[in-house]
């Protein structure tokens, strides 16, 4: 099976990891994403940020993964945020009600201040 329709890129910094998701996050991408992110989800000393700028598709599978990361991070008292959410993905976050729990993480907020 060729033709990567979903890719994950990571920018690892001293106190933050930014994970760039692009393409289609569907059931066929779920296992890869869970396994790939697990170590970073469990690293509570670094803020974790998901950047969704290039995400083209998500369904309840992907939303479920985000919910589970959110729960793990919250339970561990570790920073977690989601940024650059495209309108069509935001609409699904609103419908499911996950929006209320998502804000850019502290790490990402500082990063932005640094740049501006």
């Amino acid at each position, binding site marked *: *099976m060729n033709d990567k*329709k979903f890719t994950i890129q990571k920018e690892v910094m001293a106190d933050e990891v930014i994970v760039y998701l692009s393409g*289609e996050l*569907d*059931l*066929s991408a*779920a296992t890869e994403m869970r396994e790939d992110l697990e170590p970073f989800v469990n690293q509570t000393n670094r803020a974790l940020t998901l950047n969704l700028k290039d995400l083209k*598709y*998500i*369904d*309840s*599978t992907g*939303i*479920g*993964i985000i*919910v*589970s990361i*959110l*729960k793990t991070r*919250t339970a561990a008292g570790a920073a977690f945020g989601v940024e650059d959410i495209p309108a*069509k993905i935001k609409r*699904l976050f609103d*419908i*499911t*009600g*996950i929006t*209320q*729990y998502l804000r850019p993480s502290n790490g990402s907020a500082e990063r932005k201040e640094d740049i501006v």
Partner: protein
Amino acid sequence: MNLQESQFVSVRVPAEAEFVDIVRLTLYGIASKWGFSYEEIEDMKVAVAEACNNAVLHAYEGMEKGFVEVKFEMNDGGIRITVKDEGSSFDYAHKEAKAESLHNKDLSEINAGGLGIFMMQALMDDVEVHTNAGTEVILTKFLQRNEELA
């Protein structure tokens, strides 16, 4: 409109995660041909994928993986999409009663699953489920017509 009503397109794929994108692609082709907007097509893509995901994940548990068959029919009012598997049945009325969003919930109460049926209902105009032999999910989206055409 008799001709239109009897026309349908169907696609059949193995009940495996990596084939669900083929169903989304076929849906895209059909729905844009039949005049749905980009936003409506995106909604339908997710709803149809939720029904296919359920067939992949739940229908053939503990038995040999079968197929998912998706049928697209256009009639005057809109598109009717039937997602069918030949897996084990389940109590839809019970699951439907539990289908809800994460609104008004505390983070500690929510879990990572159980959004599929809710999403189908939120994204389509009508959802019907038959669980006699396997599962048949019937998703309907009405076609919004322009004023001039009405």
